[in-house]
């Protein structure tokens, strides 16, 4: 059970940022709020508690954007975790080959590239609002020439797409050599 320390907001984000010190947690909350993330300071449940007794509850879907912002602002944090379910992100990648194309699946995301040219020909799956944006920015471009989704995305779908992209780039690099 979580106890809001600041107010009785009805916000349910489903994720926690854990910190080593109370000062870091307060700094993290402030920076995230300044960038319009909805967050709240909470006491983490005993099963997830590491470091100090204060954590920041976040919308876990926004993990990638929040992680990037905290790193950019040099706020030290320990871990970002979902409040329920599997604590670890899926890291299984599946590969399916078509005649001239290779499709890499990571979680709910699939990235398909042309095996001869190394060009991304399709991105499918997912559902968070950064996916159509990433789709447009990566489609018909070479794997070696696009910005990794982790750098432009904000959500867990983008993180899954980044995993598929990384594997696709690895496959392409090996095949090209």
């Amino acid at each position, binding site marked *: 059970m979580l106890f809001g320390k600041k107010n009785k907001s*009805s*916000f*349910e*984000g*489903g994720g926690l940022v854990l910190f080593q010190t109370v000062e870091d947690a307060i700094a993290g909350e402030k920076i995230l709020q300044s960038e*319009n993330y*909805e967050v709240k300071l909470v006491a983490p449940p005993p099963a997830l508690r590491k470091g100090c007794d204060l954590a920041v509850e976040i*919308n*876990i*879907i*926004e993990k990638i*954007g929040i992680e990037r912002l905290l790193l950019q602002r040099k706020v030290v944090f320990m871990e970002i975790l*979902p409040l*329920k*379910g*599997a604590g*670890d*992100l*899926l890291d*299984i990648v599946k590969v*399916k080959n*078509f005649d001239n*194309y290779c*499709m890499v*699946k990571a*979680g*709910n995301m*699939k990235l*398909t590239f*042309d095996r001869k040219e190394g060009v991304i*020909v*399709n*991105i*499918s*799956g*997912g*559902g*968070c*609002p*950064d*996916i*159509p*944006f990433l*789709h*447009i920015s990566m489609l018909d471009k070479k794997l070696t020439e696009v910005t990794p989704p982790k750098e432009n*995305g*904000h*959500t*867990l*779908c*983008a*993180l*899954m797409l980044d995993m598929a992209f990384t594997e696709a780039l690895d496959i392409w690099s090996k095949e090209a050599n």
Partner: protein
Amino acid sequence: MLLICGTIPQDNFSIITGKAEFQGDRLLVENTEISCTQGTAALISAACLTAQFLNSSPPQVVLAGDTGKGTGSNLLYNYLINNLPGLNPDVLLMHYILPIMGQMKKVVATAAKCGKKPVLMADASSMYAAKGAGLAPEFDVFTPDICELAFLADPDAIHPAYIQYHLFSADDSQAPDLIEAAYKQKGAAKILIAKGATDYVAEKGKIVAEINEPDIPAMEAIGGTGDTISGLTGAMIDAGFNPRNAAVNALRTNRKAGACCEATPATKIRLIVEAIPKALKSIL
């Protein structure tokens, strides 16, 4: 009236609302052209063409720009919370919107205040929000692929990125087991349209249809082929089909559209969309 709500990949956050039309190869919302790409735009395009084919009213849409930070998504949630009873849609189809569980709860509560509760459909991240908020049984139609089906079957996951390994490792042949588990865990809508090598339609816990022809494996790679299924289904329900028949005909039409344009893994969704009228003619 079919009301479609979702984000488009633009940094302009303001709400765009009105009647959607697909003219020639252009998607227009009250004279504003929206690029027909993967996502809500593909869904709307499919719904427009289906409505045109069935001589029913074009869909009404509520859109906002969002590239992932959630500002446009919050505008959409608030728009629905403030306007849904006045709009009183027959079908509400929610799509690419940042999952915010508290906001989704308010939307569903507001939908219950409509003169007649709309048929509630959720695809993509709206399905994640509905399931994560424990609202799945309140919805009439969900449209998961195999990974999303595993997510619905996982009692604790609030996003497919965090499903349990044994569920993710399930292949298409285990879709019936995942469907059963999703209903058991109360992670399913009344109707599930499960997309895969074989498509399944399940209603209240039981599989009522299986579709596997024409078999076009490349469709899995094409971004937007799930969006078109949702658009087809929503438009058919709005035209008077019962949800089960709409689901079956949407799945058949989508596969046929893929066959009509001889889809490969590199085919773009626009080509599938443009083949929908020909496919509808063949299926209905």
